[in-house]
């Protein structure tokens, strides 16, 4: 008994200190300070606080989950200890930074403002005590959340999630409110872009209350509804998708110009993601130079339509097939040399291709053709029958159409012979070949179709900006697209949209994040691969494989469900 308690303490001490180091790192690289400029709940709570206190809350929860102790009080004490300890490194930082200027020594982000955030604008000693006490309490709460029964935990969590969610995405909520109900509604609930404290409390109570109520009598209600209104179950199941489609169609009306611009960007990434999904998700060929095809599509479009002396001045519709065709051709040409390569080598060679294309676009060598670093200007807008697509709202529907087309093609291909061949190649090239699959043809078709989608995205991107520069086509685009299909779930079509929303949409809404966007991406990639490698919206095949692995308990060795490599 006493031994197990001692063990638990050591565990929570270690976890607490580890969490403290993480909190210290997040503070030293400047995230806390930057995020604390944005109020989550006006005048009370900033995103920086959220970031800072997620650490003790998380460590308290982890402590409780991993403790072998059954006694609640011991679990809670462990959470308290871990929370208290997680503040120690930060307190060390506070005293160190007050003693010497760490910025002099190169740590540029350890500013007085950061220390003020950490000490709640009090002195070192008082502030540190407050910080430690808060961290301890939050650690305690974190472990309490694990201990309390499900029926209380769920409403509380939902309340917190809704409040913070609305606070974080206040911009979207405000835009929708303004477009639906006018400025009065916005002013009623928000001050300078953040929730009023009372409104936040109300939101929390409503969300928690509704969850508790639904948890208590939701099942009975649903049964009752079905008996009162005789609707077939299939119809009910259609309600969600129908609402989703309606929402997608009227989105620009709700969001206003700026946010529609963001939606356009998300759309372009969905388009590229669907293309790369064919190459990586279906055929398992990790391509890190995907931006090359996007660039080729955009540059072909620009050269063909631009009204400067570099361009031919064709119309968008005349140039579109050529832009897509150029990308497809590039896909085949770049695909041939890498036919023999697998895995890591393929990834790095394609990355090299992408960089070669970018450096060539940037160089003086090709300047007479594609403008070098100055890029190509004066690309005319897209127009249909004299109607010009000028505003982001117009372009939205155009991009939506492109996405739907790509979605349809991907969906049909996935279940077609070609899609099955791709997946066979993904699982095992040698076996696939032995089964009579023509590897060369299958792989090249994958590269070509994937490239075609990117070419289409590029061809829309060029007139959207009306000018293109080599800097728009750097490696980060490839990485973004790769991340979004991994986060969404490799090989899953809805996953692409989900991934694009998370990775392209969210950072635009949380503009404070831009500086740390890639840090978060990187961490997200690692965490996803360790915790949830199948993505947020896994494809059906993946789900089946994972479930099979759990249910059947196959004999060790050869029987494991094979994941795509």
């Amino acid at each position: 008994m006493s031994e197990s308690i001692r063990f638990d303490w050591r565990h929570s001490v270690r976890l607490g200190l580890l969490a403290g180091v993480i909190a210290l790192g997040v503070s030293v690289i400047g995230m806390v300070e930057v995020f604390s400029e944005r109020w989550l709940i006006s005048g009370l709570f900033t995103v920086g606080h959220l970031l800072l206190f997620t650490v003790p809350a998380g460590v308290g929860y982890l402590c409780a989950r991993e403790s072998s102790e059954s006694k609640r009080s011991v679990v809670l004490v462990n959470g308290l200890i871990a929370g208290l300890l997680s503040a120690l490194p930060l307190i060390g930082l506070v005293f160190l930074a007050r003693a010497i200027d760490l910025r002099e020594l190169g740590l540029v982000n350890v500013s007085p403002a950061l220390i003020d955030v950490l000490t709640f604008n009090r002195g070192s000693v008082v502030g540190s005590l407050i910080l430690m006490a808060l961290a301890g309490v939050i650690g305690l709460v974190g472990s309490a959340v694990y201990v309390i029964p499900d029926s209380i935990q769920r409403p509380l969590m939902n309340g917190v999630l809704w409040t913070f969610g609305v606070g974080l995405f206040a911009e979207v909520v405000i835009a929708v409110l303004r477009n639906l109900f006018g400025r009065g509604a916005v002013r009623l609930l928000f001050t300078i872009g953040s929730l009023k404290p009372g409104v936040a409390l109300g939101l929390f109570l409503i969300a928690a209350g509704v969850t508790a109520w639904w948890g208590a009598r939701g099942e009975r209600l649903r049964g009752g509804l079905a008996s009162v209104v005789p609707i077939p179950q299939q119809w009910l199941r259609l309600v969600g998708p129908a609402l989703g489609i309606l929402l997608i169609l009227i989105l620009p009306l709700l969001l206003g110009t700026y946010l529609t611009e963001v939606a356009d960007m998300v759309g372009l990434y969905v388009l590229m993601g669907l293309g790369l999904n064919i190459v990586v998700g279906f055929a398992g060929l990790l391509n890190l130079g995907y931006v090359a095809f996007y660039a080729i599509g955009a540059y072909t479009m620009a050269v063909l339509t631009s009204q400067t002396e570099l361009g031919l001045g064709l119309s968008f519709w005349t140039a579109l097939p050529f832009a897509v065709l150029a990308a497809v051709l590039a896909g085949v040409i770049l695909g041939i040399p890498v036919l023999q390569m697998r895995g890591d080598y393929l990834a790095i060679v394609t990355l090299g291709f992408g960089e070669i294309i970018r450096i060539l676009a940037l160089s003086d060598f090709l300047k007479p053709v594609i403008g070098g670093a100055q890029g190509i200007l004066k690309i005319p807008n897209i127009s249909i029958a004299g109607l010009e697509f000028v505003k982001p709202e117009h372009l939205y529907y155009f991009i939506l159409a492109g996405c739907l087309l790509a979605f349809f093609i991907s969906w049909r291909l996935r279940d077609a012979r070609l899609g099955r061949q791709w997946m066979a190649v993904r699982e095992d090239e040698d076996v696939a070949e032995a089964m009579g699959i023509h590897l060369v043809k299958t792989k090249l078709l994958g590269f070509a179709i994937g490239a075609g989608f990117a070419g289409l995205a590029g061809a829309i991107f060029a007139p959207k900006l009306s000018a293109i520069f080599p800097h728009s086509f750097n490696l980060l685009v490839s990485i973004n697209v790769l991340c979004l299909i991994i986060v969404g779930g490799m090989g899953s079509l809805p996953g692409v949209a989900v991934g694009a929303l998370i990775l392209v949409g969210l950072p635009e809404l949380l503009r404070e994040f831009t500086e740390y966007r890639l840090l978060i991406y990187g961490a997200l990639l690692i965490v996803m691969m360790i915790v949830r490698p199948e993505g947020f919206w896994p494809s059906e095949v993946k789900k089946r494989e994972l479930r099979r692995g759990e249910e059947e308990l196959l004999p060790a060795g050869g029987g494991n469900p094979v994941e795509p490599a």
Partner: protein
Amino acid sequence: MRGEVRKGMRQQFLERFSWIDLFLWVLRIGVIVIIVWGSIRSLAAGKYSATAWLSLVIAGLAQGSIYALIALGYTLIYGVLLMINFAHGEVYMAGAFTSTIVAEALARYGYAERYPIPMIGLLLVVSMVVSAVVAVLLERIAYRPLRGAPRLVPLITAIGASFALQYIFRGLFGSAFHTYPEFGRMWGQLKVGGTTIQVVQVVVLVAAVVMMAGLYFFVERTKTGKSLRAVSEDKEIAALMGIDVDRVIAITFAIGGLLAGAAGVCRGLYQPQGIWFYMGFFPGLKAFTAAVLGGIGSIQGAMLGGLFLGIFESVGPNLFLEGLGIPAAYQLKDVIAFTMLVLVLMFRPQGIMGERLAEKKA
């Protein structure tokens, strides 16, 4: 009978000879023609004297020895884990960037000028330790939990780790360019038969050779080195022989980090400018090219590949491209390196020294 066989062979040839092969052959011949034609034209133009070429070669050797030091990390890790540590360029950046920050602080208080040699020693220690720590943490956090996962998975975490590391260091030290205090200048120049050589180039080259000799000694002569070789031969059998495989893998990452940290200081001495959080990416890719060129998994190969790539990259733009009438050929330096990577992987994936590992396992 014989006639039939011959006909069969011809048919076989026709069957095998696809348009893909044709394309690859055209590519091979095209590359050779471009290189030869460009070189002939450049040499015929006589824009550069022999001593100019020689100094380009020496600059290439110095640059190449930095690549070689980084390439050793790729090769060692590939040797034990059969994976490409995509984030190794960031390990190099970590040491170089941190030591630059320390060097700047030291220079501000005047220590750098007063005690240059101990300072370089200190910077070397800082850089190597930081890189090694980063490498070990990287292994612990991003790779160890995924051992035995499909090949694509650790590659993806490596990409993630690469970006996370870049932006962590950007957050720590800011996004501005930093400059190493100019230790390099103090050694001045050397005149050998009409060619001026910067002494720092020689220092870098010698330092790299010493490091590599030390590594060779470590791997071949020490007990840990022996267990390292055992693990790279077969992890399971090594574990059965009582070798702590996880520990050996961590040590491998640490050694890779130490070498990368040393490369960081060499880079700072040789090219003091332009040190920032993104400095590791391209050298990382190029060092990978060097490792592949030499034959991944081979220590001598990494050294050779690094030096060769350095020379190729330094001489290449002036030799191959300028002769073709390409303006500002130096801008295409990186294109040469990447093209070389692609060509090596296409036509000789086992590299100069390597066995036929690549096809079997990659």
